[in-house]
């Protein structure tokens, strides 16, 4: 049987598949197909047909031989970025209807007076205050005014609202008013989608909780329609099994659950990369890995320190805070399409503006006049002009030269070639800095990490970055260009349960915490049951969100010792102090602490995944004239080009390796060798 994973990207959708078709040999096949933004479900179907062709089958026969389909989707994220969610209303505690709009007064850039706050997703007329109030303990101070709820529903009906987010103060402690409100809405407006903050993000801080809930309400009907379309279309070809959806937390759920929680799919694609990172580490016995994925518009990094994925309890996306656990991806605006510009005075910047795929880099000759990283790569001779993106574009060297000359070389009074070096050099160092931030900033030394190369553009920079960070090696998997979809093949079911739980050290009560934990376990067990996870495959990890009593921000402290005993507090305390010191360079080991949230990850032990083999094609002694800069040499040099079929022995730099969709630069004093099936390792010679 076959497993399929699909990663929908901005330009291309990647389809990866492994298994045996009927009784044939074991195969691993991936294809890239352009993303269909207008009819996304049709796009997926077209891609699957293409994939089936690669297996020499029609889609119906192919699906008969398929056991699992996993889908990574950017639909929710794109709808958020493009503000194409549904008309949404927000019910809030009366007197507090503006949290969503007023935000918390802080701006990213304090030096830009005209900076706009991100768009408010629910206009004020659709933010409706409802009487009823809980206090800081979750005790009811004023009862819910049900007439007001019905009145608000009438208003929503008049205005054609499609979704309602409900977020009342302190509902994370007592959801009673929110639940009753949902019942009334169901009676009054049975077709409207309702999302409660107590279900989406039951944690303190109403601004962040409201925003997360509103985003969920705003996006879910859109995602639900799409998933429904895919289900129907695949059913036409005989597919009756579940479609697994890749989640922000690196786990899988199904279309049924995601028809209520679109917010959990915002990082669906990159999450596949995070799982892939973990898988490569396990397969190769590496405990500390950094996945670096350079695409067209951004450079994404994911770090694993000690084998398994850690989540962050909250994050920010497109200017909106999200109070739900997510994989810890950091991203900077450095991709192939990032634009270089020179400030008056001569400082050079790369990004964050990007030429995107339309008009794209100047060399695409689609009307782009700004010099991009890709243009510089072309000038330096590092891009395979004849087979760029699988031969999709014929690149114009002339356009690239012109853009770099006008916008970078002339202002600096340098040659086009020198300007291209500057763009390449700064882009490489920006990426190195981004990796530095997520390693050293968390107290981790980059010198003990293996760098895993993914995305089409990264292998061109990999050696420079490795050198700048003194990293020992780079692993280059042949499936790098489709890494996220490959990673999804190894993902398994997961459910994150979060509870607000306040307990100070001096109130330590093991029984109370165990009781709450038991409820969370129950919740997790029933969700894993629903997702058909075998009992002996179920795993549960607990994280305590903790801080000093007088602090305002919590840190995540993993708890690996099962249930709590009356004297567990000593271990909890030590773990907290140690974690605090590791992050902030100090700990006060005599000060009181508190727990504020419990977070329980409930998941299926990760599935098996397999590596992809190299193709057999050899290069037959081809060579190319390139700029020496990327190869640690001064002048232009002639380097040999290798293909995948040449890679069963050590290759020393300077050299280029041509893969499908990407090229690896091996500078002087570097060499690369096979590390495992379909994985190369690039290292520096010890001189």
């Amino acid at each position, binding site marked *: 049987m076959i497993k399929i994973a699909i990663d929908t990207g901005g330009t291309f959708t990647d389809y990866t598949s492994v298994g045996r078709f009927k009784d044939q040999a074991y195969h691993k096949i991936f294809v890239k197909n352009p993303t269909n933004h207008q009819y996304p479900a049709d796009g997926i179907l077209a891609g699957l047909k293409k994939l089936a062709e690669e297996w020499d089958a029609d889609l119906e026969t192919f699906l008969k031989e398929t056991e699992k389909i996993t889908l990574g989707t950017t639909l929710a994220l794109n709808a958020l970025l493009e503000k194409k969610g549904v008309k949404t209303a927000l019910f809030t505690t009366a007197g507090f209807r503006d949290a969503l709009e007023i935000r918390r*007064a802080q701006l990213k850039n304090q030096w830009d007076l005209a900076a706009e706050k991100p768009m408010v997703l629910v206009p004020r007329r659709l933010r409706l205050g409802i009487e009823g109030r809980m206090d800081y303990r979750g005790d009811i101070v004023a009862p819910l005014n049900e007439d007001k709820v019905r009145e608000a529903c009438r208003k929503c009906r008049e205005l054609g609202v499609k979704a309602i987010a409900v977020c009342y103060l302190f509902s994370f402690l007592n959801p009673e008013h929110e639940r009753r409100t949902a019942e009334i809405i169901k009676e009054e407006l049975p077709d409207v989608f309702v999302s409660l903050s107590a279900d989406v993000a039951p944690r303190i801080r109403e601004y962040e909780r409201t925003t997360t809930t509103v985003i969920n309400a705003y996006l879910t009907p859109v995602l639900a329609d799409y998933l429904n379309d895919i289900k129907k279309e695949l059913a036409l070809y005989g597919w009756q099994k579940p479609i697994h959806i890749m989640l922000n937390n690196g786990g899988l759920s199904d279309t049924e659950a995601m028809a209520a929680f679109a917010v959990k799919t915002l990082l669906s694609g990159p999450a596949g990369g995070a799982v892939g990172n973990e898988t490569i580490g396990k397969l190769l016995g590496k405990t500390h890995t950094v996945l670096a994925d350079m695409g067209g518009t951004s450079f994404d990094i994911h770090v694993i320190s000690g084998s398994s994925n850690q989540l962050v309890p909250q994050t920010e996306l497109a200017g909106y805070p999200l109070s739900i656990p997510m994989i810890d991806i950091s991203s900077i605006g450095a991709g192939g399409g990032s634009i270089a510009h020179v400030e008056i005075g001569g400082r050079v910047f790369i990004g964050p503006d990007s030429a995107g795929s339309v008009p794209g880099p100047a060399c695409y000759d689609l009307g782009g006049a700004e010099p991009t990283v890709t243009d510089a790569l072309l000038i330096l001779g590092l891009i395979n002009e004849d087979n760029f993106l699988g031969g999709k574009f014929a690149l114009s060297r002339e356009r690239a030269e012109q853009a770099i000359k006008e916008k970078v070389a002339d202002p600096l009074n340098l040659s086009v070639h020198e300007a291209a070096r500057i763009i390449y050099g700064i882009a490489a*160092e920006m990426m190195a800095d981004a990796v530095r931030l997520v390693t050293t900033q968390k107290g981790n030394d980059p010198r003990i990490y293996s760098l895993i190369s993914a995305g089409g553009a990264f292998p061109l920079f990999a050696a420079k970055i490795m050198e700048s960070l003194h990293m020992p090696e780079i692993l280059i998997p042949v499936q790098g260009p489709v890494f996220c979809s490959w990673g999804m093949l190894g993902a398994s079911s997961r459910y994150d349960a979060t509870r607000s739980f306040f307990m100070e050290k001096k109130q330590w009560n093991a029984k109370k915490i165990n009781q709450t934990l038991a409820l969370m376990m129950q919740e997790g067990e029933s969700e894993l049951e629903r997702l058909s996870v075998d009992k002996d495959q179920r795993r549960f990890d607990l994280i305590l969100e903790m801080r000093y009593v007088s602090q305002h921000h919590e840190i995540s402290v993993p708890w690996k010792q099962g249930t709590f005993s009356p004297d567990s507090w000593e271990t909890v305390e030590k773990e907290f102090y140690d974690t605090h010191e590791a992050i902030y360079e100090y700990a006060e080991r005599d000060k009181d602490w508190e727990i504020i949230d419990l977070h329980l990850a409930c998941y299926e032990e990760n599935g098996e995944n397999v590596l992809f083999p190299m193709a057999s094609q050899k290069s037959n002694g081809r060579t190319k004239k390139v700029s020496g800069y990327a190869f640690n040499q001064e002048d232009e040099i002639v380097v040999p080009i290798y293909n995948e079929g040449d890679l069963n022995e050590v290759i020393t730099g300077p050299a280029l390796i041509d893969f499908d969709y990407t090229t690896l630069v091996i500078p002087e004093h570097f060499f690369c060798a096979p590390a495992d099936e379909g994985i190369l390792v690039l290292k520096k010679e010890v001189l």
Partner: protein
Amino acid sequence: MNQRTEDIINRAVIINRLDSITGEMGIALEHSAHSPIFAEACDFACCICDKDGELVSQISGIPILATAGAFSVKALLRKYGHHIDDGDVFIINDPYDGGNHLPDIGIITPVFYDGELLFFSVSRAHHGDIGGSTAGSYNPKATEIFQEGIRIPPTKLMKNNEMIDDVLALIALNTRNPEMLTSDFLAQIGSNRVAAKRIREMLETYSVATVKKAVQDTMEQTEALTRQRIAAVPDGTYAAVDYIDDDGFQEEPVKIAVSVTIKGDRLLVDFAGTDPQVKGFINTSVVTATCASGIAVLWFLGKDIPRNGGAFRCIDVNLPKGSLVNPNEPAPMTLCTLTPASEIIGTIFQALDQAVSGRVSAGYHRYLGPSYYGVDARTDRYYVGFSFCSLGSGGAMEGNDGKPYMATLSNFGGVKAPNIESNEVQYPHITLYHEMDTDTAGAGEYRGGCGMKYAFELYAEQSDIVNFGDGVKFAPYGLRGGHQGSLNRSVFVHDGKETVMESKEAPRHATKGDQVCLNTSGGGGWGDPLKRPAGKVYDDVQDEIISLETAEKVYGVAITKNGIDLEKTKKLRGIR
């Protein structure tokens, strides 16, 4: 590779790195600090200065604080000169010698490499209490700085990386929450240490000479850019005047007079004509007045100018001795980072708007709200709370409506208002309402941000509140035909009886059930309200930002149940 190419790459890389280091300092400080005023509200700033105290990089934090770090380092250098060693850490807050106001305490860590002093990492943060006659350190009735808290000249706090316990104890003992103060010093020291470590890591990769050259080139580049921008502004002298309500003692308003003279690539901000120093705590330290002038001018010159020493050295400031903006000791001045710093910025904006239109905003709200303190019966802990939720809104700019719910201009975009839920967990009060207030936004083609209404009820048996701020007599100004925003107002309710509070009050005792009700200013408007598109006016009515009456009377847009009445609107707007 050619040397220039290498220099260009190094410069970009090293400056990016320094910027990301200051960013990292800020995150560490925000997340590990204890005082709500700087952990929850982010009232702090971090920077890196070179060995001469020139500002090299600052990212995170509050504008008025961000640029003040350089003054503290220069004060330190004046006192300690060549007696600064690796492993030392210094502390400073005296506003008469390198500080901006007493509650902002600077911690300065020299960064050495191979025995050479190269940089200082600096964090400045507003502490919850620094002693003085009033908890929370805002005392509107102070007449001397001695009543406002402990004054710390540049002082050594650590030696050989060991705390000098006597110094720490001396400072902590003079405050109401010594434990929290100590924890927060540790957070600041930790944040500085993060920066020092990162800078040394950078020096391991690049030589000292390369880093020095990159920093120097960047400063020169920034200066060149700033001078070019100044030169592009028409030569001339542009003057404006604005007023502060009062100083808490005198009835009369206090005048700020500013003239900005531009000649070629030189720019002078002159405060001649500003009122003499006053009795109350609205006097302004030299550091605050200079920083306020610098940040106002740079906002006008462009968001893309790096805020480092290279830019600030292009702006000359004249602060007459004995005036409000350069008082003689021991005048009190704790309010100065809010008022008059924000009003100084606003006055400079009004002056510069005459030179080039469209670059600055109409008036922002002025801060007004209480601090409250007492013992929290729920925990038996002593608390001091600040009313960070009593923010008003921003002024409009050409092309943009004012932003709702912003800090005052001096703190623009830096302060993070707390959540209502966090506030209620932290302090013994319950919030009654907190939302935008109809008909408070200054009208205009682009209108101001909508002001807020905010009220809370205290349920502690006994507590005290101190109301302080400004803007109950002078409203945020409009620009180019835009209208003023609304005034601030604060009311104290005891036994159902309402008392309008003054903007600078002595502490007021409160008992269980007392309420504080605040209306904060909407921002000023930009341009003629009759030019605001009728569709936007209609939306504002639907959203209850403005009333039907205002739509008709001020904006000339008639709205009925069926939508906009086009005929009547045309008539109101004088369109045939």
